[in-house]
């Protein structure tokens, strides 16, 4: 039996202002924990539950105890939980009792600490059915007479925390009658006649966590009515905290029991409008958030379009009533707020909600909002009228996404002149919102490739637009940032423009030049010029992506400009870690632009030369960027290398020796998994372009890839990509891939096994998505191998794998919802097999099930997949017929 030790001094020292005292104490605490875990637990519990001890050391004892039971890191957490599980039952009981008794003791903040620890113990014990009387002990606190408010409050907190812990455990731990009792206690605590506001707040907060378990209670109409009544009454409680918590409960209820809401929407509307109009900003924000949440739910419902899930279309019904309330809030701007990225108030929240309403209600929003816009957008009689102009512009910008382009086309056309003029508004807030709105107009209403809608920006209107935007680049930095975004969206709208010369062409060079100038602007009035730089570079990227053939010469001229810009970064001061980080980030942006330029030019055969004339310089620059980091590989530079390979083709071979060390470093960078992932992708680019010239490096590359595939340190997103890369290598190496074939075959059959198992125990969407990625990797790998080996060799080397692959295809065919990309790849692989392997027909016929046929039928019945897969369907049919 572990005897408690006096730890008061130790704990107090751990909070000492003197760092030396503090760290010594911390060291001793962790030694104690390591050397005598049971004694450590007993001592902390004793400290926490001892009225005689100082509140500070008691509270800290609780927190340390809590940290011995839980950690953020999953594997550490499992370790801690296992350690607690192995503790002697008598000691565990002793600690549990100490915790429960602490709930009864003053002061309140120690009770609160005990509540936190209790929930952590419950999180381990309840799933193991080890603390059966916890809930009843807690409920006893609630019904004690005379009631003690502090104890009730702490008990309600505990119930809430326990529910929160249970929610994160997948299995059902609490029995229905336990849930019932918890809810009864919690809802009882929410009653308006609850004498303690603190207890009522604790109850309301606990309900947020308990709602998820209340399915049965929400099915019962009278129970549901009672819960809803308590929540709605809470929204008008004296205490602001309770009102806020009540609205948060409403978000949870809407998210969990949307279908049950109709009876309550009248009242919820009334209390939310009252809160928005009359209550404090914090309550109003939660009330607005309720409607935003409801939009999210109905957007999801519309997206999934599942007939089993009812969509009540609350939003469509509420729009005429809610919109005026929100519009009024738009005029409550905080001056100067436009410059603060993190600003959040009722005006911002209402605009955001308006945007969500527009996406949900679509065309129905337009007549509700437009009168407000037209009435106020030109108001200029008093000095405060900028609020009306800004609100009108914000409202207009908010509803641009959602309504059909048709319903907005004419309105937008008429508004363009107004918006362009407003870029000269005396108030910077109005100019900021106007620039944002112009960007949204371009984003949602300007698509030169879409012939269904009349062109918004024509050769006639573009000169004025360009002039205003170029002017805006010189405005205050936060406005210039928005103008950059607008230019990007403007360019994007011309991406689909067919023909030699888009309307943007005459302004192409001027816009790029101005964006370059903006990127190097240093504005003393605004510290954050980095943001402008980022936005200006991205606008250049969008311009380049949208460049029509007659502007490719200009794009070509950008290559040396950006090489020069990268060269300049090496002169930056890099004394501090922060400065080095800043340099790396700038190099990243510049390499990003270079990547976009090279990719654009490589798409057109005769412009590859525009890249190639700087080939050596490009590679030297990128290598220098790589060399600038000691232990990492610059991801953007790596992606730029990928784009560069397409301009070079086989000539890239000469850069392989100097690049290879970084390629290797990237493949081994398991910490920064994005870097590793991008490197694997670029390896594919390289292989496609240098083909067999990669051979001298392949032994080591394959070793690294195979290691990564088997390693737990490697982020799982990388693994499917590695499999695809096997396919890439097999495709270009042909016969030379044979020496890796045995290993790769083994890897693939393991991956297939894993995927089939995952498909059987299908869990959440995240899991399904990953399994589909894995499947695509496997399918691409096999396609590459079969086609890379070609008819004779594939038959010889790969025929033995065919039955496994068919079982794998069967597993895909059993999916409840088929993924287009997976199915297309799978059918094409079956086609590959039937093309290069002899007598596949009998194997297909002998497969355990013929779920693979579903995949063929799915493609046959689908208009958009048939074109890509018809050849494969025919090949499979031919093979099967021949076996008949």
């Amino acid at each position, binding site marked *: 039996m572990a005897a408690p030790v006096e730890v008061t001094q130790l704990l107090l020292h751990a909070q000492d202002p003197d760092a030396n005292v503090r760290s010594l104490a911390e060291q001793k605490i962790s030694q104690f924990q390591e050397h005598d875990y049971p004694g450590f637990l007993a001592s902390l519990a004793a400290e926490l539950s001892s009225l005689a001890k100082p509140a500070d050391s008691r509270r800290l004892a609780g927190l340390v105890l809590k940290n011995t039971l839980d950690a953020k890191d999953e594997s550490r957490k499992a370790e801690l939980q296992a350690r607690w599980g192995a503790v002697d039952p008598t000691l565990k009981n002793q600690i549990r009792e100490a915790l429960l008794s602490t709930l009864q003791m003053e002061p309140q903040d120690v009770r609160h600490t005990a509540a936190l620890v209790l929930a952590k113990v419950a999180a381990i014990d309840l799933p193991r059915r080890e603390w059966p009387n916890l809930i009843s002990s807690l409920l006893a606190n609630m019904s004690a007479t005379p009631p003690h408010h502090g104890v009730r409050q702490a008990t309600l907190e505990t119930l809430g925390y326990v529910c929160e812990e249970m929610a994160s455990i997948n299995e059902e731990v609490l029995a229905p009658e336990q849930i019932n009792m918890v809810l009864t206690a919690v809802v009882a605590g929410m009653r308006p006649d609850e004498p303690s506001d603190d207890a009522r707040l604790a109850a309301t907060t606990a309900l947020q966590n308990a709602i998820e378990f209340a399915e049965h209670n929400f099915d019962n109409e009278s129970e549901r009515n009672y819960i809803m009544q308590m929540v709605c009454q809470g929204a008008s409680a004296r205490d602001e905290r309770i009102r806020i918590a009540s609205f948060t409960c409403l978000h949870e209820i809407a998210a969990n029991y949307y279908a049950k809401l109709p009876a309550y929407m009248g009242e919820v509307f009334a209390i939310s409008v009252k809160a928005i109009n009359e209550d404090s900003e914090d309550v109003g924000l939660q009330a607005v958030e309720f409607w*935003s949440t409801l939009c999210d739910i109905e957007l999801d419902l519309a997206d999934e379009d599942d007939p089993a899930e009812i969509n009540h279309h609350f939003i469509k019904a509420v729009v005429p009533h809610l919109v005026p309330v929100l519009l009024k809030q738009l005029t409550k701007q905080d001056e100067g707020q436009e410059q603060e990225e993190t600003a959040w108030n009722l005006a911002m929240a209402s605009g955001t909600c308006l945007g969500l309403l527009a996406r949900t209600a679509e065309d129905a929003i337009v007549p509700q909002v437009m009168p407000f816009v037209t009435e106020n957008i030109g108001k200029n009689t008093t000095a405060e009228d900028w609020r009306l102009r800004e609100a009108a512009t914000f409202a207009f910008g908010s509803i641009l996404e959602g309504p059909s382009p048709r319903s907005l086309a004419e309105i937008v056309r008429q508004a363009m002149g107004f918006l362009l003029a407003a870029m000269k508004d005396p108030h910077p807030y109005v100019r900021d919102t106007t620039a*944002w709105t112009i960007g949204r107009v371009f984003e949602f209403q300007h698509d030169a490739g879409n012939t269904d809608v009349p062109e918004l920006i024509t050769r006639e209107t573009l000169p004025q637009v360009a002039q205003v935007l170029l002017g805006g680049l010189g405005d205050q930095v936060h406005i210039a940032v928005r103008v950059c975004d607008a230019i990007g969206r403007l360019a994007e709208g011309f991406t689909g423009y067919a023909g030699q010369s888009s309307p943007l062409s005459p302004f192409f060079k001027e816009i790029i030049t101005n964006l370059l100038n903006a990127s190097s602007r240093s504005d003393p009035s605004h510290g954050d010029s980095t943001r402008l730089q980022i936005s200006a570079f991205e606008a250049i990227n969008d311009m380049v992506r949208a460049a029509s053939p007659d502007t490719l010469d200009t794009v070509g001229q950008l290559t040396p400009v950006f090489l020069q810009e990268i060269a300049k970064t090496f002169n930056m001061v890099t004394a501090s870690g922060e400065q080095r980080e800043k340099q790396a980030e700038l190099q990243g942006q510049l390499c990003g632009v270079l990547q976009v330029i090279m990719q654009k030019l490589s798409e057109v055969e005769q412009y590859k030369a525009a890249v190639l004339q700087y080939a050596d310089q490009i590679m030297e620059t990128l290598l220098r960027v790589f060399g600038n980091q000691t232990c990492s590989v610059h991801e953007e530079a790596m992606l730029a290398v990928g784009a560069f390979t397409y301009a070079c083709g086989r000539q890239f071979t000469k850069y392989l020796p100097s690049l290879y060390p970084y390629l290797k470093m990237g493949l081994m960078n398991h910490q920064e998994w994005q870097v590793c992932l991008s490197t694997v992708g670029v390896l594919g680019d390289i292989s496609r372009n240098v083909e067999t010239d990669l051979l001298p490096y392949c032994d080591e590359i394959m070793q690294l890839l195979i290691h990564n595939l088997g390693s737990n340190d490697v982020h799982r997103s990388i693994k499917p990509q590695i499999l695809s890369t096997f396919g890439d290598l097999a495709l270009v190496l042909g016969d030379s891939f044979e020496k890796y074939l045995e290993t790769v075959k083994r890897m693939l059959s393991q991956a297939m096994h894993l995927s089939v198992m995952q498909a059987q125990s299908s869990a959440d969407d995240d899991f399904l998505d990953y399994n589909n990625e894995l499947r695509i990797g496997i399918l691409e790998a096999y396609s590459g191998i079969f086609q890379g080996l070609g008819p004779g060799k594939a038959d010889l080397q790969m025929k033995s794998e065919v039955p496994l692959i068919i079982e794998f295809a069967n597993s895909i065919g059993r999916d409840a919802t088929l993924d287009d990309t997976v199915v297309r790849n799978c059918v094409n692989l079956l086609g590959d097999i039937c*093309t290069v392997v002899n007598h596949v027909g009998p194997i297909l016929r002998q497969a355990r099930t013929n779920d693979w046929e579903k995949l063929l039928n799915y493609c046959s019945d689908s208009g958009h997949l048939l074109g890509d897969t018809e050849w494969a369907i025919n090949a499979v049919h031919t093979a099967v017929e021949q076996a008949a």
Partner: protein
Amino acid sequence: MSRRAAAKEGSSSAYTSFQQKRRAQALDRQKNAREDKVQQLRTLALAAIQDDAEAMHEDTQQQPQNRQQQRHRRRGQQQQQQQELPQDTQLYGMDGVNPLQLGGSMMKAYFARQLMQPEWMSDIPQDLGSSWLVMPRPEGKRCLVISTGNYTYARSRTGALLLRFPSKLPGGGPGTSGGESCYCVLDCILQEQEQRIQHQHNQQQQQQRVGMDADMAPAGESTPSQPQQHSANGSSSSSSSGGCTFFIQDVLAWRGYSLVDCGAEFRLFWLASKLQEEAGGSSSSSSWSLDGGNPGPSHSHRFKLLPYWHATPDGLAAAARAGAAAAAAAAAAAGGCPGYVQDGVYLRHVEGHYSQGGGCTPLALLWKDAGCSRYLLDTDGDGVVPEFQQLVLAYQGPPTDGVATADEPPVVLGRLPQEFVQQMGPKLLRPGRLLRFSIRAGGLLFNADGSPAGADLAYEGPANQRRGRADVYTKVLFQWQARRQPLQLEALLAAAVAEQQQQGAGQQQGSSMADD
């Protein structure tokens, strides 16, 4: 507050989102490039399963029967036409059609139209000695060889893919120079591995048969344009080193440069000199490594240019015994060198373009006699010459119920009796159905001007439908004549001699064109 970050931002700002966009763009690029790459090979492999093994082995050469004057008129027309009109079906890469973008069966059909189709010689051209080139024709599979994108593809006469392998042809394998635009297209006879081993037995046989020619070492007179001696520079590993031999008979394109619109003489000259240029860069001095070199890791099959001569008496004689000479040389070099069994000769008009599009051209002719072919007469599946000449004709359908050759227009050689058509039923006897007949005692029938009038046909049974098409008339006629009055080498020599005498002694024919 999660909405705070999204507020009024839309898709803007934040470096990470831009980076994400570039990552996505890179992934797209990779995905598309990957699909393109695999699709290329898919298309190629796909054509192979639609292959028709029967038609591949079939050697349905053809020549419509006509009187000499007609023939000469047609030859003249063709010569004129090809100078006036561009070929409607141009070579790969030249007509804007990238066959890799065509679907499998369409691509197969595309390649099937690429090979020039000669007629069979049933009478001797008047300008034989002055305007024709002659080349030995090895037994084997006629095929189109394309080197591009670091692979070399061999396609049968039906367009089906036979082999894909790396070679040393420009563009045909790793390490060969040239970019995407670098490709070569050759017209070859493929001698497969097993075929070659089998032929090594036959070589002896043939040597004995034409033994008196075996010591004909062509020195000085009638020098073939390509040396027949093969480099013995260490490459003389045993013949079990495997690999097939491609005997090059013509070139359609070299290093991306199309030669189909050039005369045959120029094409062969170009080919010979280009092959020598390539050899100049290799370590082997006397002979290009492609030509007779043994298969290596990056070079699994060998290529060999066939010799050719002007069809003078000497040239004709040399061509007719070239197979035997090659066999002798092969024997002398003790393995490693490809010998072959000859199956007649291949004649081309010096100015004849490389005619494409599937129809026969009278500017290319096939001829054989018992002296230079093991199979003067067609044999059946067991290698036995049937009592009656066999031919395959296509049923034309009602109302005429005619059976006709594959010529354009078809030559109708007979009609199916009404009761026969009824007995077979429409299901078995669809228009286009290929039927096998034999020519009986009545023989081939001619009109007064020598044009075909029909034949005494007996139905033998259905033909293999997969061979694709019926016989052409010139083939039927050649076989018909071969059974009665074969056109002997002596007749060809005599015609050439007569022509020489006619033109006086001023010319020195018979020297190699490559030496000119």
